[in-house]
């Protein structure tokens, strides 16, 4: 990682005061991160296993929990590919062409990062709820969006919208398009050029964006909470199932589901680090 670059430049031996400062600052950092990050993570695992491995497994075998896992996987299976295709398209248009209003477009793509997740759910109610613009039309056709899976998918697309695009735009801008232009001038078809030249060049950045997008999609709570209606076994994703179990004081079960999500988070960090290492960048 690039963060190590400055460490080796230390030539002059440290004075006693510098050594003391160093020790103090490292101690503060480790203490702060330990309290803030490790204690909660540890709490999840300890609580999940408070009554043993058998109880943990039994909690995860609950039919409502299983259906919440299925719904989370289904949502991710729809949302991640959709936002990946969007991200590639947006990055191609923005990084490869100069046009008016580009910075406005970039700002609008970033908008979901600045908006509260609760708003992402709320706005869908004004479109598809019974009082919303399309509410009556949907009712006549017996299609339910709010308090149903389509609403969950739409809210999740909203909040995870920028992830892939944001990774790809700076990467593609930095790489330039000389190789694509060369391939095209030699007679390669546009699609072939994209698959054979562009895609291999951006694969690590793309993977990085997809990993982050997936973590957000599977873990989203606020936006989904507003549109889900919390119908057990039907419209509960894993984070919502965690909330329901927790509010029922069913702590072992709540933390059992939470422990799966925590493992997903750790896997995400590992995958992210591997991708940074493979692509030779320091990440952010």
């Amino acid at each position, binding site marked *: 990682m690039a963060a190590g670059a400055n460490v080796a430049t230390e030539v002059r031996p440290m004075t006693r005061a510098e050594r003391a400062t160093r020790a103090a600052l490292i101690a503060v950092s480790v203490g702060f991160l330990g309290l803030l990050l490790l204690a909660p993570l540890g709490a999840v695992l300890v609580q999940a296993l408070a009554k043993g491995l058998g109880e943990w497994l039994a909690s995860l075998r609950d039919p409502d929990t299983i259906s919440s896992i299925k719904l989370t996987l289904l949502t991710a299976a729809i949302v991640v590919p959709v936002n990946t295709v969007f991200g590639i398209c947006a990055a191609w248009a923005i990084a490869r062409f100069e046009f008016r209003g580009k910075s406005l477009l970039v700002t609008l793509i970033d908008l979901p990062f*600045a908006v509260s997740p609760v708003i992402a759910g*709320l706005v869908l109610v004004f479109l598809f709820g019974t009082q919303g613009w399309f509410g009556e039309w949907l009712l006549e056709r017996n299609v339910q969006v709010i308090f149903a899976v389509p609403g969950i998918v739409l809210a999740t697309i909203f909040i995870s919208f920028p992830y892939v695009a944001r990774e790809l735009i700076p990467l593609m801008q930095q790489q330039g398009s000389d190789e694509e232009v060369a391939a095209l001038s030699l007679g390669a078809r546009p699609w072939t050029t994209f698959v054979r030249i562009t895609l291999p060049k951006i694969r690590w950045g793309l993977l990085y964006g997809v990993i982050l997008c997936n973590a957000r999609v599977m873990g989203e709570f606020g936006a989904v909470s507003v549109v889900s209606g919390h119908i057990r076994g039907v419209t509960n994703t894993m984070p919502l199932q*965690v909330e329901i179990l927790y509010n029922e004081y069913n702590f072992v079960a709540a933390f059992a589901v939470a422990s799966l999500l925590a493992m997903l988070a750790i896997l995400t960090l590992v995958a992210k680090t591997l991708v940074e290492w493979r692509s030779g960048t320091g990440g952010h």
Partner: protein
Amino acid sequence: MAGGRIVVPSPLPGFGLTFGFTTFFLSAIILLPLGAMVIRALGIPPSELLAMLLDERAVASYRLSFGAAALAAAINAVFGFIVAWSLVRYDFPGRRLLDTMIDLPFALPTAVSGIALATVFSPTGWLGLKLAQAGIQVAYTWLGVVVALVLIGLPFVVRSVQPALIEVRKDLEDAAESLGAGGFNVFRRIILPTILPALATGFTLAFARGIGEYGSVVFISGNLPLKTEITPLLIVIKLEQYDYAGAAALGFFMLVMSFVMLLAINLVQQWGQRRMGIGVAR
């Protein structure tokens, strides 16, 4: 820039297709729904809208959401800087692991960090018990909101400051030291001015995220009206009570604040670029 034309000609194909799809998808998924809420909010007579926004419970929620987000971002500015400094300047066992862990709040679902913090800081929890003995209650008070927002905002500050710290010119520091400047003076005169824009960016990003945060806060805050109720929660409550107008009004206000924050982030970054361009010769 594009000069006089709308699109600069390029030998590359696919502009129409990708630009068209991007704008269509953006409009359908983001702009149309946001527009529906804004139109609903602006359909409320102005005096009623104002009364809803200045309602006692709403104002108390702004105070908590904005106050806790600002305090949490300030705490992160201090500790996030120390963490970034330790990670960039020192080598110690576990440094790489710690560096990876910084992104945990990005990867961990907010509901999970929410119930975990509530458990750790509850009066019977590991930390809550110790704090309770010292007479401090964190869970179910405004302090709990601050703790949750510190967790959520940490990576924004550390990841903003780290690259800036790598850029600080060691030769300037050494020169200052050789001329007799003490450690604090070097920090104040050389290091702080170089990283200030990055620190300001990290603060603003953490603050902006904190204002809208929901999942990690609602479990630890206790959600008492007028006391520990954040604005996003108040929106959810209005919606559950079928008070669509009230939810639209508060949602509209939060959206306006999001735009203000986006503008602030842009201004801070522009200020930083100007400052780095003029201030330090590269």
